[in-house]
Each structure stands twice: as C-alpha cells, then as structure tokens.
C-alpha cells in the first residue's frame, strides 16, 4: 500500500486534506504537515520524518507539495535520500481526490506519481471553455 502525504507552507496541507475527506470520507494512510511561517526547518523536518515513517507501509509515500523551490519541497528533497518517496508539486483538490481514491490500485510509486501529476494538470479548466463546449 502506497501512502500519501501533503506538505505545504501555511495551513494549506491540513486544510486541503480536511476538505478532501469532507467530500470523499476519511481515509487511512494519508497525512499532512503544514509548515508554519516561523517554524524551525529542523523541527519541521523531524516531524515530517515521523509522519513518513507512519505512512510508509513498504511501497513508499507519494508526497504532494505546494510549489517547486519552496521550503516544503526542499525539505522533502533532502528527505528523499532517506525515504522511498516521489514528490509531486502544485497540489490541488482534484489532484488530491484522484490520488486518495486511486492509491489502492497502484503498486509502483513512480507510476502512481506520474498518474497523479497528469490528473492534477488535466483537471484545471477555463470554465468558459467547458460551458461553450456544452452549448454546441
């Protein structure tokens, strides 16, 4: 079983996880860590490690971060030497819902990360395009 962890700045990670659970119901093997603005990166890293250890059941953990180049992503890159993780940046709600509802059907972490990345990108729409498509 692959685990999923969300790591972001501010409170986004916890809030997006709660929102996802509100829609599809609570799930196991999903965790979040929000790095607050004045948190010490060393302390944050240790707390994230603790959650990763809980979520890794042997097949690794897909980590969804907010933005490439930001502290959450950088901390995860440093931890990727120690843990089996794939990191996908730019977490959004459709991406998370897709990840959480399909995590059970993947064994390969890299394949799963690729699929989740594609779904996250695919599910961004310019609404007027969708509405005009429907009117045709």
């Amino acid at each position: 079983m692959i685990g999923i962890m969300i790591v972001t700045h501010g409170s986004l990670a916890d809030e997006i996880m709660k929102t996802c659970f509100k829609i599809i119901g609570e799930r196991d093997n999903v965790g979040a860590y929000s790095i607050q603005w004045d948190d010490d990166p060393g302390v944050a890293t240790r707390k994230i490690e603790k959650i990763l250890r809980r979520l890794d059941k042997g097949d690794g953990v897909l980590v969804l971060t907010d933005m490439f180049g930001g502290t959450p992503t950088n901390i995860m890159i440093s931890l990727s030497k120690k843990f089996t993780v794939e990191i996908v940046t730019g977490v959004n709600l459709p991406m998370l819902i897709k990840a959480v509802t399909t995590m059970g059907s993947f064994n390969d972490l890299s394949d799963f990360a690729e699929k989740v990345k594609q779904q996250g990108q695919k599910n961004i729409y310019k609404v007027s395009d969708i509405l005009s498509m429907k009117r045709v």
Partner: protein
Amino acid sequence: MLEKKLKLLNKLGLHARAAAKLVQLGESFKSEIKISKDNVEANGKSILSVLLLAAPVGTELIFKINGPDEQEAMAAIRSLIERKFDEGE
C-alpha cells in the same frame, strides 16, 4: 444495457459531496456506468469526471448502465437521487 433519464431534486444538484456519494455507490457495482448531459458524457465511477457535468438542481441526467448487475445499479442510483442524496433538506 439500461438507459434512464433521472432528474436531480436536491437543492445543490451534483455538487462535490453528492458526486462522491454517487460515485461510491456506482463503484459497488460491476456494471459500467455512463452519465450524460448535453454533449458531455462522464464515467459514473470517477468523481472528477462526474463533476464536469456541472449539473444543478432540476437537471435531467441520462444514465446508461451496462453489465451483470445493471438492474440493481440503476435501482440504487435512482433511489439515491430520489432521496436527494440523503442531504436532509
């Protein structure tokens, strides 16, 4: 293959939580479930696909269900919609 037109009766239409309930119900059946509105067809077992239908209250959705348990699936979906997704309005 069964085909039935069902009208959404709950106040918020096919919003995120309602779509999740519909998809979770659909997943419990083996049959393939397609839902269509206007020119858009959604996979009834994918929440993101179902949400693309953008269906408010009063919308008539066409359900096409195909498979070994299509009768039960259609009955269960019809019941969920008639119960207004158990949203207690």
